[in-house]
C-alpha cells in the first residue's frame, strides 16, 4: 500500500473546556479527541467507527479547522495545516477540503436555492466567473444524479426529497473537486432504499475523482462497504485500526469485538453470540491515565487500570491499543 499521502494526522488532540461562565477559567476538560494518529492516501477511504460521543465527528471537524486542535499536527498534501494564519493558506486549504454532513435536512440552508448552495464554495473562494460556476454546478449536479439539473437549479431544499437533498450536499462538497472529504454519517438519516443509492454514488465518485475520504459512521457494515481502512474509536482514543476486511473478520480489541457482535443480522436463523460488556458509554471528562475501556472490559487486567495502552502494530497493518496484544499478533493473556 503505497501512494501519495494526502492527510497525515499526528498526535491530534482536541479538549473542550467545561466552563460555567465567561468569568471563570475552565477547570475541567472534555477530552473529545486524544492523541490520534493516522494517515490517508490518495484515493483511499478511511472510516472512523464508534458509538456516539466517541470523538469521531470532532476528529473530522478538527481536521477541517472547524475546531482548533488542542495539540498535535495535521499535514495536508505535505503542508503543515495545524494552524492556518495566512489568508492564502486558508483559501488553499478550504478549496481542497470539504465535508458532507449527516442530516440532509439541516445541512442545506433553507433560504438558498440549490444553485446557491452548490455554488457557495466557489463564491466563497471567488472561483471563476459566474458563467463558469453555473456550468460547474450543472455538471456536478448531473454527476450526482440530479437530472435534469436546470430543473432543480432554482429550487429550494424543502422542495426536494431526502435522497435528493443528500445528493445536493454531495454535489456541493465535490463541486470544487476537493482532494479530501470528510463524510460525517452521510447516509444514516436516509431510508434504506435511498441509503444504498447514495452509498453507491459516493463510491463511484470517489473512484472517478480519485479523492481521499474520511468516512465517519457508527455502522460497521456501512464502514466495511465504503472504506478501505477502518479505525475504531472509543472515548476519544483510537482503539483499533486495520484494513476493513481484516478488521471485520479478525477484530482484536474487546470493544471492536463487542461492536461487531452487537450488529443485528438480517437472518432470523442466525443466532449471534454477543460479547457481554458492562454499563454504558460515559464522557471522557478529565480521564484517568488508564485504558478508557477499563470499566466495561470483560478482560480488564491490573495493568489496564495503571496506564493507557498504546496503539501497537500487530502485523498486516493492523494496529490495536490493548494490553492483550503485543506486536505481530502475539496474545499476552
Amino acid at each position: 500500500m503505497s501512494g501519495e499521502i494526502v492527510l497525515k494526522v499526528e498526535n491530534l488532540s482536541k479538549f473542550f473546556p467545561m466552563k460555567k461562565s465567561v468569568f471563570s477559567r475552565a477547570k475541567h476538560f472534555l477530552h473529545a479527541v486524544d492523541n490520534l494518529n493516522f494517515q490517508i492516501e490518495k484515493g483511499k477511504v478511511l472510516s472512523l467507527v464508534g458509538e456516539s460521543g466517541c470523538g469521531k465527528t470532532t476528529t473530522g471537524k478538527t481536521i477541517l479547522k472547524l475546531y482548533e486542535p488542542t495539540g498535535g499536527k495535521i499535514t495536508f498534501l505535505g503542508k503543515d495545516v495545524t494552524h492556518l494564519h495566512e489568508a492564502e493558506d486558508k483559501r488553499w486549504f478550504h478549496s481542497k477540503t470539504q465535508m458532507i454532513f449527516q442530516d440532509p435536512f439541516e445541512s442545506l440552508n433553507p433560504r438558498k436555492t440549490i444553485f446557491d448552495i452548490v455554488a457557495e464554495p466557489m463564491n466563497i473562494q471567488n472561483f471563476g466567473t459566474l458563467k463558469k460556476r453555473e456550468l460547474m454546478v450543472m455538471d456536478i449536479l448531473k454527476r450526482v444524479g440530479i437530472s435534469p439539473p436546470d430543473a432543480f437549479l432554482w429550487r429550494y431544499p424543502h422542495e426536494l426529497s431526502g435522497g435528493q437533498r443528500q445528493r445536493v450536499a454531495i454535489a456541493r462538497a465535490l463541486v470544487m473537486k476537493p482532494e479530501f472529504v470528510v463524510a460525517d454519517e452521510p447516509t444514516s438519516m436516509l431510508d434504506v432504499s435511498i441509503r444504498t443509492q447514495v452509498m453507491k454514488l459516493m463510491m463511484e465518485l470517489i473512484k472517478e475523482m480519485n479523492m481521499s475520504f474520511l468516512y465517519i459512521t457508527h455502522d460497521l457494515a456501512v464502514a466495511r462497504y465504503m472504506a478501505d481502512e477502518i479505525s475504531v474509536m472509543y472515548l476519544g482514543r483510537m482503539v483499533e485500526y486495520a484494513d476493513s476486511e481484516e478488521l471485520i473478520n479478525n477484530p482484536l480489541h474487546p470493544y471492536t469485538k463487542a461492536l461487531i457482535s452487537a450488529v443485528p443480522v438480517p437472518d432470523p436463523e442466525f443466532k449471534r453470540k454477543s460479547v457481554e460488556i458492562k454499563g454504558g458509554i460515559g464522557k471522557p471528562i478529565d480521564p484517568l491515565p488508564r485504558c478508557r475501556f477499563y470499566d466495561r472490559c470483560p478482560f480488564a487486567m491490573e495493568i489496564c487500570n495503571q496506564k493507557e495502552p498504546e496503539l501497537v502494530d500487530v502485523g498486516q497493518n493492523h494496529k490495536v491499543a490493548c494490553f492483550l496484544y503485543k506486536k505481530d499478533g502475539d496474545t499476552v493473556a
Partner: protein
Amino acid sequence: MTDSTNTTVETTEAKLESPISIRMKLMWRSFKENWKIFSQSKIGMIGLYIVIIFAVAGFIVYPILADTVWKTTSLNAMVSYNPVTGYDFLQNNPAPPSWAHLLGTDPLGRDILAQLLYSTPREFMLGIVAALITVIIGTLIGTIAAYFGGALDTFFMRVADIVLLFPFIPFLIVISGMMQVDLLTLALIIGLLSGFGGITIVLRSQALIVKSRPFIESAKVSGASDSYIIVNHIIPNVMPLSFLYMMFNVTGAIFSEAVLSFFGLLNIKMSWGLMIYTADTAGYIIGSNIWNYWWLWLPAGASITLLCGAFYFIGRGLDEVVNPRLRKR
C-alpha cells in the same frame, strides 16, 4: 452577467436567464408561497386590510383632501382655515358630525377627520422607524452575540437584562417629561430601548439555533469568513423572525406614542393620543359626555386600537408563516 464566453453546454445555457430576473422570479415565488400561508390566517388578513385602509387614508386620501376640500383658498380668515389647526366659526364647537365635518369638530373647532388623517402617516412613520431601528439593532446584536459568543455575548445579554428591567413606559415618560421629544426622537428612543432589550434575546436564541445548524459548518469548511456567514446564512434565517418582531414593535411604538401624547408629554402638533388628551382635559370623556361627544375620542381611540391591533394581527399572521408549528394542518 455581461461577458458571454463560449460554452460547451449550449443546451443548458440557452435556458439560463439573467440572474437578476431569476432572483426576482424566485422572490416573487417565495412571496407567493408565504402569501398563501399568510392569507390563510384570517387574523393576519384582517390586520393587513386594516393597515392598508389606514395607509390609503393617510398617504393618499389625506393629501388629496388637504389639497382640494381643505385647501385654504380664500384670504378671508373667517372662512379659510387649516382643518388641522384652524377653527370653524360657523358653529358651536365641539360640533357633532355633519356634512361640513364628517367626524365633527373638537373643542378648538378643528376638524376631527382632518386631524385623524393628518396624524395617520405620522403614526406609520413613528411605528415603522422605531420598529426598523429595533429590528436592525436587535438582529445585528442578536446574531453577532450569538455567533461570537463569549464576553461579547455576555455583555450584550446583560445589557438586554438591564433594558428589560427598565419599566418601559415610565422611562419614556421621564425622558419625554424632561426633554423635548418629538416624533422622530421618540421613534429613536423606542427603537433603541426595545432594540437592546427583549428582541435581542429572542433573535440571539434564534441565531444560536441557526448557528448550530450544519450548513454553517458547511460554509466554514468552504472557507467562509465570519462576516460572510453572518450576512449570508444567519441573518437571512433570523430575518423572518425579525420581521415578525418588527410588526409587534410597530404596535408597541404606536401605543407608547399614544400613551405619552395622552399625558400631554410629547412635543408634537397632532396625534391620535393628543386628540384624546384634548378631549379628556377639556372634560368630554366623563359621565354622559362620553357618549354625547363620542366623536371626540372614539375615532382617535379606535384608530389607535385598530392600527396597533392591525400590526399585532399581522404579526400573529406572520407567526404562522414563520413558525410552522403554529400552523393548522
